[in-house]
């Protein structure tokens, strides 16, 4: 007996067993219980009655015992004594006589019975008896766990899925395999589930398929009228209080629904919901419009009678009235929109406010609607609404927020920083009180910073006192990345930390970035400071939080920053994946600027992995996007490294140099250091004087380590190069450490210090092995393997295993002196001085 909930795969498993039996040469038969056959004795098992229904006796009765025995003999004869493997699907729906026949045939071993029973349906006595006397095994099937759902999705989609999409599918299906199947098929077909850069994303809502509708309707359609009404009510208006539901239905109706697994009742607050999120959607979709309207209006009136129309119930009231096709009071709609905005539900904000007649929207309504349109990626529409809103009478507060939201939309959405700046400056006419004017100035600094001018941003920020909490928060959002960009990294980290604390104190307000922005800034500042491990850890933690809250712009920035950190760590395959993820998310959410930055990172990582095609592809994709100034010079790393990978060093040098010049002109000093250092790494050009200046200007240990490396490489000083290796390794910049070690080895070679050269060479290859397949000119030059002769290797292995020279000599029939001679060579070649180091050098662990 296979037992489990509807859609869990009982029938599929039973059929699979039958198919295996058939493949092994057994005859098979299928018996299906249904509501129709349940009314007709033996209706379901006609297929087994090979000898017909039997003849009635003179009194018109059919003797069942006789009929059963005749059937048994006929089956044996037909199948030549082989047991008939019989799948009885939904045995709860079989009539008693059919059940008795199955029981008889199974007991006589004429058939091998595979029965399915749905959770919540009564298990027939006969089946229970067979189970009790041990002639039936019971298999309980459960819905998929989260992990198993992930595996199924991976196999079905043949690739990874973006975290938010996986989470959404889990929430909607709760692991029910049938629902998973139907939703995935529907979503792939409708294009809601779409693959970008090798990762699956979920763009729109999940459309239910008609088969899904049938399945759910089947489950609901058998319910008595009152229970059905409760399900419909919940589908439209859930959650509802249990106290209220008890007034509209008999008490045992709810109990019955709960027992059937259709509703859940939360213990703490007594709220009743449909047990499965999908049921609500399907029931809603299949209800006649008039009925929906009647229920929604009645419920809205009930709320209205109980609560103030502008209280917390306003959101539900407004949505229900809209769903019912009514025109709710604009005041209720705007109040509802505020409540929806508090939970970042921008779709509902838009829906409510678009129902407000244009002349009644007001400045505040325009602000809310404009912001929602921006968040939903509808930048042109947002610009119209916000520009119109600015013409309406408004308080100074609302005027300021309208201005900064419009600036953000024009800058980040429409990618027009000049126009954004003009809007900011125009707003100064209406925003005049001190604190608000300061916030407007901080907003100007934001445009300057994120259009590629940290120098100008800092100049503006210096004029802002920031006595007001909100101004301080906005100032920190710009200040932290600007300070990091000019190399004042310690200060940048502090500003980001303080900004986050201030933002938490302020609360999540209108017309200001998400609080996670400060965490993103801190990640950026830590990266520029070369505190790579800390940056990585913080970005991973932050990324998980914003993925669960579905804040796409923050998800994009965390992924892109993880890509940056991984690039600097030399973990290039990891970098490639994070950048691809960021690019896909940016595309899905219509953010052209961040997408440009992510595609640049993707091209950079691909080029450093030697995958020239992929790098060129990312650069092509980038070319179609509008210009975007934030970290502009850094984008050029992609072009320069693509030239390096294409073996065009002269082009690469020119690209590095041009980008570095632009970085210097706009005070992107940490970026300039990155560019000049890479120029030195790839072409050998001496950039050490400027790198030293940059190191002296700022406080970043990463910038300092680059300067030190360049100076040592220029001087060919082996000890200094070795120190550079330590420096990079301490920061976790393993690719740079590997390259410095390769250079140090060459330098030791030059000075004739063979042992140190060998040690460095070994260190270079160990470090390079951590770089996930990096292909850079310096690494290509370095020799990788250490040549030991066979005999040397044999002796080295024995020594590493702890044998003394004397024992080795005995074992290999050599003199102790010869063994020691060989070991001496091994020590020199491997650059080790002790047995413990030797063990490590040979890949041992102790």
């Amino acid at each position: 007996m296979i037992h489990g909930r509807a859609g869990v795969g009982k029938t599929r498993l039973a059929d699979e067993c039958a198919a295996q039996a058939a493949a092994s040469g057994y005859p098979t038969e299928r018996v299906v219980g249904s509501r129709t056959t349940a009314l007709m004795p033996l209706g379901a098992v006609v297929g087994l009655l090979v000898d017909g229904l039997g003849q009635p006796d003179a009194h018109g009765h059919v003797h069942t015992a006789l009929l059963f025995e005749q059937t048994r003999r006929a089956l044996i004869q037909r199948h030549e004594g082989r047991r008939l493997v019989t799948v009885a699907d939904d045995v709860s729906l079989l009539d008693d006589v059919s059940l008795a026949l199955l029981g008889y045939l199974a007991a006589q071993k004429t058939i091998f019975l595979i029965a399915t029973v749905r959770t919540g349906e009564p298990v027939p006595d006969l089946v229970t008896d067979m189970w009790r006397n041990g002639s039936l095994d019971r298999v309980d099937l459960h819905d998929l766990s989260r992990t198993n759902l992930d595996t199924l999705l991976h196999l079905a989609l043949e690739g990874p899925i973006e975290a938010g999409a996986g989470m959404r599918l889990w929430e909607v299906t709760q692991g029910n395999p049938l629902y998973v199947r139907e939703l995935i098929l529907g979503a792939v077909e409708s294009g809601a589930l779409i693959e970008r850069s090798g990762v699956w994303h979920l763009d729109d809502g999940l459309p239910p398929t008609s088969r899904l509708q049938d399945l759910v309707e089947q489950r609901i359609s058998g319910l008595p009228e009152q229970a059905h009404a409760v399900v419909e009510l919940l589908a439209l208006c859930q959650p509802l209080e249990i106290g209220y539901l008890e007034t509209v239905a008999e008490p045992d109706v709810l109990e019955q629904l709960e027992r059937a697994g259709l509703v859940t009742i939360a213990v703490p607050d007594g709220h009743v919901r449909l047990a499965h999120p999908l049921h609500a959607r399907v029931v809603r979709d299949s209800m006649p419009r008039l009925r929906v309207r009647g229920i929604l209006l009645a419920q809205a009136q009930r709320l209205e009678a109980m609560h103030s129309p502008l209280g917390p119930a306003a959101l539900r009231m407004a949505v229900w009235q809209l769903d019912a096709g009514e025109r709710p009071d604009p005041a209720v709609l705007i109040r509802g929109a505020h409540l929806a905005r508090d939970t970042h539900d921008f779709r509902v904000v838009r829906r409510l406010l678009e129902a407000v007649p244009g002349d009644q929207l007001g400045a505040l309504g325009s602000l809310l609607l404009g912001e929602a349109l921006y968040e939903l990626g509808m930048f042109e529409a947002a610009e119209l609404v916000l520009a119109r809103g600015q013409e309406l009478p408004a308080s100074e507060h609302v005027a300021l927020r309208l201005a900064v939201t419009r600036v953000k939309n024009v800058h980040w959405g429409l990618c027009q920083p000049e126009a954004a700046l003009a809007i900011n400056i125009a707003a100064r006419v209406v925003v005049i009180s001190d604190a608000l004017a300061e916030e407007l100035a901080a907003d100007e600094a934001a445009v300057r910073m994120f259009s590629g001018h940290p120098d100008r941003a800092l100049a503006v920020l210096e004029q802002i006192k920031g006595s007001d909490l909100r101004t301080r928060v906005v100032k920190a959002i710009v200040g932290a990345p600007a300070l990091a960009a000019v190399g004042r990294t310690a200060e940048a980290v502090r500003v980001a930390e303080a900004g986050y604390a201030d933002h938490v104190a302020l609360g999540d307000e209108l017309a200001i970035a998400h609080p996670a922005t400060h965490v993103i800034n801190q990640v950026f500042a830590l990266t520029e400071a070369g505190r790579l491990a800390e940056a990585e850890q913080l970005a991973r933690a932050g990324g998980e939080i914003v993925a669960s809250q579905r804040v796409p712009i923050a998800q994009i920035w965390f992924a892109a920053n993880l890509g940056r950190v991984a690039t600097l760590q030399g973990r290039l395959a990891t970098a490639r994946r994070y950048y691809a993820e960021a690019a896909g998310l940016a595309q899905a959410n219509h953010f052209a600027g961040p997408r440009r930055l992510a595609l640049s990172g993707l091209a950079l990582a691909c080029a450093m992995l030697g995958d020239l095609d992929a790098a060129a592809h990312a650069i092509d994709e980038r070319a179609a996007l509008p210009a975007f100034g934030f970290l502009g010079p850094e984008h050029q790393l992609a072009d320069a490294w693509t030239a390096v990978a294409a073996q065009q060093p002269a082009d690469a040098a020119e690209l590095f140099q041009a980008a570095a010049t632009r970085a210097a002109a706009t005070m992107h000093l940490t970026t300039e250091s990155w560019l000049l250092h890479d120029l030195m790494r790839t072409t050998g050009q001496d950039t050490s004087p400027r790198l030293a200046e940059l190191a002296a200007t700022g406080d970043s240990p990463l910038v300092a380590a680059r300067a030190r490396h360049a100076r040592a490489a220029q001087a060919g000083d082996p000890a200094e190069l070795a120190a550079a290796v330590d420096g990079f390794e301490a920061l976790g910049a393993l690719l740079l450490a590997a390259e410095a070690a390769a250079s140090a080895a060459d330098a030791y070679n030059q000075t004739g210090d063979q042992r140190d050269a060998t040690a460095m060479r070994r260190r270079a290859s160990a470090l390079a092995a951590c770089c996930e397949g990096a292909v850079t000119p310096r690494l290509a030059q370095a020799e990788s393997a250490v040549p030991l002769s066979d005999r040397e290797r044999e002796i080295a292995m024995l020594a590493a295993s702890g044998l003394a020279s004397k024992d080795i000599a005995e074992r290999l029939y050599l003199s102790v002196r010869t063994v020691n001679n060989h070991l001496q060579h091994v020590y020199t070649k491997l650059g080790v001085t002790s047995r413990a180091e030797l063990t490590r050098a040979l890949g041992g662990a102790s």
Partner: protein
Amino acid sequence: MTPEQIALVQSSFERLGPLRPVMAARFYEELFSRHPDLRALFTTDMAEQEVKFAEKLALIVGAIPRLAELLSHTQSLGARHVGYGVRAADYRSVGDALLAALAAVIGDSFDAATREAWTVAYNLVAETMLDGAAMARPTGS
């Protein structure tokens, strides 16, 4: 799997570096201490077995981003394991032992997200090995 999970599995495995043999040895320790009965399935030299295990694991971890390549490793591996007498239930024991060995060798940086990523990755590998096993198991009577 999510791209982040793939990155976590690969980077944490990458960082094991020279400790891979230690992890392999620890894996068998964990496995046999939990299920001494499984010891009987291994007839070859354990040192050799550990090397094979570490090599195969490296191949599989490397192939995770490309499903077709992953399947080519796991399905044939699963098919071979039928012949070794491995049952479906043993896959859970192996997964537990693998996670315990990774946790022990990786140490503090084996955080909740890394564990989750390895759990999902192992599940994917085990499921596809079982697929291979099912294809290999003869159905004739």
